[in-house]
């Protein structure tokens, strides 16, 4: 579901914000955090870099509007990733600009962790296509 949203959301995002091409993964993650999240959810997660090879990043959300009215996960659903939608959106959006990425929840406040953390792992370099038009 999130993937479907992401593939379309990215065009809307690119149309409304005037970001140009990004030249590095950290730049991409920064833009996702500072511009996109702000535009659509009104929050600005902070970005940390996990991996020294600069392929893995985390977004730490201190406030998640999607779970504003959720106190705890329903009984019997304790393994539910409530906000997996967000991961799908990020994954779909990156795929539309030809960047394969793995997006997962590393920590989830609903499951008892202190913060909500989304991890983005870029899988491989953007392919060297015949005409490099986007990153």
């Amino acid at each position, binding site marked *: 579901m999130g993937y479907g949203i992401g593939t379309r959301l990215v*065009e809307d995002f*690119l*149309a*409304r914000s005037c970001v140009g*091409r990004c030249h590095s993964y950290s730049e991409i993650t920064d833009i996702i955090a500072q511009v996109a999240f702000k535009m659509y959810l009104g929050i600005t997660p902070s970005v940390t870099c996990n991996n020294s090879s600069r392929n893995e990043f985390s977004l730490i959300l201190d406030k998640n509007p999607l779970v504003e009215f959720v106190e705890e996960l329903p009984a019997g659903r304790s393994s539910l990733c409530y906000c997996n939608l967000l991961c799908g959106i990020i994954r779909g959006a990156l795929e539309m600009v030809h960047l394969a990425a793995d997006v997962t929840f590393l920590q989830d406040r609903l499951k008892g962790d202190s913060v909500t953390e989304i991890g983005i792992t870029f899988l491989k370099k953007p392919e060297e296509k015949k*005409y*490099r038009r986007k990153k």
Partner: protein
Amino acid sequence: MAIFSVYVVNKAGGLIYQLDSYAPRAEAEKTFSYPLDLLLKLHDERVLVAFGQRDGIRVGHAVLAINGVDVNGKYTADGKEVLEYLGNPANYPVSIRFGRPRLTSNEKLMLASMFHSLFAIGSQLSPEQGSSGIEMLETDTFKLHCFQTLTGIKFVVLADPRQAGIDSLLRKIYEIYSDFALKNPFYSLEMPIRVSTGSPLYLKWRKSLRPHPLSSFVPPGPGLGVSCLTRI
């Protein structure tokens, strides 16, 4: 009319939306008597003027209507062949309307794909890496502006050479595309866009094509030619 056409091309090079909003400016209707002093020939399913240019009728113009009735390619509305009809002295005097032939939907599809390929070639020819591709193509009668989004969709606008502000128009069209096509749950990505002429977003689109409020009336034409070709 300052904006002549809008084309939207998807990532694979297929035309997904097309809108024409120009009236053919060169049209001439004349009454002729036998024998016809123009040389007509059949080309590409149309009857074209090969020789005998006069009075606004130029070489390359096609027969658009005979006696006020539009012709259907090389056949008249009754199903008779145009050349045969015009070769028969009994049908004269006859009034024929000549004009620049309009592109058919299939021709537009083909031309859009060709432009997509040329765009790719243009990017490769660039001496610098990371070229944006063809942004503008200028001729003496029109200027073609192209905007490629980071996701690979191209918006192409053909406009009057003197028309300014096309860049912002292209951005606006991108916004309207993302509003209308992408937020429509029944629209599949990369597929031809079907637009109903009465929908408020279509009207908004047409309004954004008219930068000057006093420009001539643009009829809500069947610019959905492409969507008519493929039923979703």
